[in-house]
């Protein structure tokens, strides 16, 4: 079976007008415009399998949205090829559009002054969903997302979380197999975020759907994505599991200690590098693969009454990865971890 999404040497360059500041600059730009080429996406290649949930990581302006737009057919690439759900996004037409869905956390498709049910019915017509399929899919989505009481309330009167649930239902009525989710939990409270995540996992399990996700919430990434594509300035820096990324960028683990009476910094320093010492608390850093052994030794030494091994926050790992990439000479910027061709 072919891949759900394949991108090969995908590139996108923009021509942007440059002008000097002030009125003079504005006039000059009008008479003799100058342009600069900006590389938004630079030779991205990756494959995503059916049923995989993959997260795009990268700072603002890294090229995540541009890539998503190329995968959905909204932008022509400058170079490279894309196949999504067996189609070329620009020539796939209705067959392609019926297999995908695009959910933008900061844009809405719900009709503002009307209940969500009306948007659903419009989508039924747009996607030409046969009535019995529509009823089945609608029932499933209403149950999974708990939309029952919301369906006859005008969208503008719904809370942000309720509206996002309805947005998702509207976007999934035609039962797409490929979901492009750009910040699907943007601005939602923790409970609503959690509900959306559980729903997405459930939808994937039921329909073997493939999801490509961008989010600024790390909890989205850790809860949903089995794999991350890290991009910065249009280039792929890392392709692999989140754990592999963390292990690669943060080789140390931090151990929190509750000190026993009379414990000294010298005693503690034998087990690892002291990060913080203030009786009765201390933290030390030890190499990741020695963390368990080190904790056992500390406990045996009698200098502490309790230990707890902490993983550094994932945000730190990602920040470090980008910092490392920024320090790397470019071009050619080698990936942090060799990109192993996926089976």
């Amino acid at each position: 079976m072919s891949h759900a999404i394949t991108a090969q040497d995908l590139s996108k360059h923009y021509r942007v007008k440059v002008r000097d500041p002030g009125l003079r600059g504005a006039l000059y730009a009008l008479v003799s415009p100058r342009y600069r080429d900006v590389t938004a996406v630079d030779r991205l290649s990756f494959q995503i399998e059916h049923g995989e949930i993959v997260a795009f990581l990268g700072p603002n302006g890294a090229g995540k949205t541009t890539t998503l737009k190329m995968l959905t057919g909204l932008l022509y690439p400058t170079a490279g090829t894309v196949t999504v759900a067996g189609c070329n996004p620009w020539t796939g037409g209705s067959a392609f559009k019926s297999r995908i869905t695009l959910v933008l956390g900061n844009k809405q498709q719900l009709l503002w002054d009307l209940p969500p049910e009306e948007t659903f019915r419009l989508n039924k017509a747009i996607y030409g969903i046969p009535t019995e399929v529509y009823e089945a899919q609608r029932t499933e989505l209403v149950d999974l997302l708990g939309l029952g009481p919301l369906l006859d309330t005008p969208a503008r009167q719904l809370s942000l979380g309720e509206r996002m649930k309805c947005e998702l239902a509207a976007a999934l009525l035609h039962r797409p197999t490929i979901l492009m989710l750009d910040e699907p939990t943007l601005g939602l409270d923790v409970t609503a975020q959690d509900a959306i995540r559980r729903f997405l996992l459930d939808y994937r399990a039921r329909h073997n759907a493939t999801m490509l996700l961008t989010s600024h919430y790390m909890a989205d990434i850790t809860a949903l994505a089995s794999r991350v594509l890290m991009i910065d300035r249009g280039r792929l820096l890392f392709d692999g599991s989140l754990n592999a990324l963390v292990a690669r960028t943060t080789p140390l683990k931090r151990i929190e200690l509750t000190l026993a009476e009379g414990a000294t910094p010298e005693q503690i320093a034998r087990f690892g590098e002291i990060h913080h010492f203030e009786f009765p608390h201390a933290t030390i850093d030890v190499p990741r693969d020695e963390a368990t052994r080190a904790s056992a030794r500390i406990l045996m030494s009698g200098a502490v009454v309790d230990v707890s091994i902490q993983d550094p926050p994932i945000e730190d790992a990602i920040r470090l990865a980008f910092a490392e990439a920024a320090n790397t000479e470019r071009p050619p910027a080698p990936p942090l971890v060799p990109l192993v061709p996926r089976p």
Partner: protein
Amino acid sequence: MVPSVADAAEPRLELNTWAVLRALIRLSATLELQYPANFFASMFGTLFWLTMAVLTVALFYSHTTHLGGWSFWETVALLGVFNALVGVVEGVFRPGIGSLAEQIRHGSFDLVLTRPVDAQLYLTFRELDLWRIADFVLGLSLAGYAMHKLGRPLDAAHALAFFITFASAIAVLYSVWLALMCLAFWLVAIENLPTVFDALFEAARYPASAYPKALRLVFVYLLPVAWTTTIPASALVGRLSMLGVVESVGVGCAALLVSRLVWRAALRRYTSAGG
């Protein structure tokens, strides 16, 4: 129950333009029926506007018997046609394609483009201000009353000629409106484009022959204003030949074709630039 992989395959889709059109019109009706007061507001507004317009024309005719060869009641018939077209512009064009720039700015246009529907069709009928049907009905009623005053009952041939030229007029107006709004893809700020359209269309309030010759040629050949009111009104009052009817169909079709090409060029630009 977890469906099998076969169940997970996408449902068979039958894309249906008419179903989308019906759904959009139904939605607008649902929305508009929530605010029935708008109907009366629209009705009174139109009645007031029409009275003023007729009085202005009457003022002209207090100094002359003919305007560009048109008698008072012939000009009133044209005014009625003009107002019926205003109903189409305000009821369909402005809320629909008129929202294009805003949709591009807010990014909701992206969501339209990812759906299996013709984006032009969808945008055209996405939102309708159905109460503006008052302008349409009152406009045609005024034209009918003028015909009665002229003592020319409408026979089937004239009615057909009017129907055809009126449809062509809508096509021409739609095309000009669409092409103007498409400039939003190239220019960032287009707040003034509807004003350009309004100014142009305002010229259609009087018979094209009432204007100086140079301007008349512009309205016929360059900016197709003459085809919007003068031609259908001519058909109504029996001033238009068979050839004129055929020509108006040609102009209407050509306008639609050109505006579609502009639309496609605009979309190509959007998808190759963007960001």
